[in-house]
């Protein structure tokens, strides 16, 4: 279960253009039961005028020293302030929150599809379920924006990289690369995280193949722990549209049920 904790910044450094990695000591948080896809909901320190916490996926945990890694992109005020936090800064976080990715014994080959900063949370899937066969499809804006590539190379049987500008891997959309690969090999499941247009393309590409997929959704959040119902996304299980809370009923949803 998530808790409200006082975490401590241990490291915080740039790992790619506009992308940072922060290691935090997690205080009283229960990170032993961390599930990939879960996030930390972090108050912006020292800024009383910014009321909302910022949700950042936990990209890896290390229960041995009680730390977690967060990989984030500078997007606006909050993440800009995060990028300037120095070691020892105390941060107020609710973590780990959410229903993450879920693999059973039935899924043996897993394709991971990530775009941009959405690539980060996928890595821990390979740590949580090490005995699966993984292929990763990673889409970056360009060479300067790439991060964690070595980690995926180590953890996955195959890594296909694309970039918007062609400076890294194939030029083009990561979903197109996936589409070509699907003609050769069909996984048991696809786990994806990335911008909505990528998820839409993913849906189109997967549909004809009948491959199930789980996707991590983003939504503007207020409380981050289920109390306000501001963070919803549409879900349709076949009984009409319902709004589900991304914070505690997600962020991971069935690609074929969620409204994109």
């Amino acid at each position: 279960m998530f808790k409200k904790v006082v975490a401590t910044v241990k490291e915080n450094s740039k790992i790619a253009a506009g992308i940072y990695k922060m290691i935090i000591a997690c205080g009283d948080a229960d990170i032993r039961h961390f599930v990939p896809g879960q996030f930390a909901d972090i108050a912006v320190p020292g800024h009383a005028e910014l009321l909302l916490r910022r949700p950042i996926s936990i990209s890896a945990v290390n229960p041995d020293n009680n730390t977690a890694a967060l990989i984030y992109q500078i997007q606006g005020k909050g993440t800009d302030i995060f990028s300037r936090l120095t070691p020892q800064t105390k941060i107020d976080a609710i973590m780990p929150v959410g229903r993450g990715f879920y693999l059973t014994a039935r899924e043996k080959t897993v394709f991971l599809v990530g775009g941009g900063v959405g690539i980060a949370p996928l890595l821990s899937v390979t740590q949580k379920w090490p005995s699966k066969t993984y292929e990763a499809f990673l889409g970056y804006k360009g060479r300067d924006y790439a991060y964690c590539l070595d980690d995926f190379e180590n953890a996955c049987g195959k890594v296909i990289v694309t970039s918007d500008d062609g400076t890294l891997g194939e030029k083009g959309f990561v979903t197109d690369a996936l589409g070509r690969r699907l003609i050769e090999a069909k996984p048991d499941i696809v786990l994806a995280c990335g911008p909505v247009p990528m998820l839409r393309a993913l849906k189109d590409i997967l549909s004809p193949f009948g491959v199930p997929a789980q996707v991590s959704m983003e939504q503007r959040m207020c409380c981050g722990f289920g109390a306000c119902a501001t963070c919803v996304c549409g879900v349709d299980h076949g009984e009409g549209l319902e709004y589900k809370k991304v914070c505690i009923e997600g962020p991971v949803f069935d690609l074929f049920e969620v409204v994109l």
Partner: protein
Amino acid sequence: MAVDMKVTLCGKVLKNPVIAASGTFAFGQQHSWLIDVSRLGGIALKSLTPEKRVGNKPPRIAETASGIVNSVGLQNPGVDVFLEKMMKRVALFDTAIIANIAGRSIDDYVAVIQKLNETSIDFFELNISCPNVRMGGASFGTDEGMARDCVMAAKAVSKKPMIVKLTPAAGDIVRIARAAESAGADALSLINTIPAMAVDAKTKRPILGNVTGGLSGPCIKPVALKMVYDVSRAVSVPVIGIGGIMTGEDAAEFMLCGATAVMAGTANLVDPEAPLRIIDELTAYAKTMNIDNITALTGALEV
């Protein structure tokens, strides 16, 4: 010396004057994972309507300077599902329970009240900020006549003390307050959120899926304080102060302006521990001020 934090609201004793505001505490469950909900003076449940409501199109929240704009839109399971699945758990909290009631017509309000009359709920809170569909969507709470009719009808069927929750969108909130009082309100709570909007200049779009929403948080406190001050001097029923309460001192300010109790809303969402912190800070404030009974604060502003 210990401060006596108890306050009496419509004949019922609350442990302390700090209540969780409707829509910011759901039905108490999520907060109960993080704090001891029973320490609160009371909790106001999310607005209940006769039918299930799916709520507004997302995004539903925008951040503004010292505030937030939300457009949840009364998403709730409907009173029947509430009774069937949630009431039992709510009843376990050892604190005053306020059922907040919303509707599109007077019949809606009446229907919900009748279904909740026989429960252990302590108070009803009539959310009259809702648009009246019969009257072209103007909110019950912005029109003296509609407010009066709604409160009278609700009172006629209600078996519990009735708090009427006022909206700041009323041009003259004192007039609506008087109308509600004369129609039988046992207490008034104010303010609900202020109609507002947030825009993303970069995308040239409104941030909320619903375009507009309601502003809450510290930014609205000065507006709420004035309304509570004005209303509490104009009516003789107790007033519950709401709007941007984040600290014990904020709560004290509302009580000084005439509130018998207060509700914290946004604070609960921003920091789940806030309601307990507010109680502790209010107690500490009372000690510093040599007040041994928190009720002494109500209306004690020296003007």
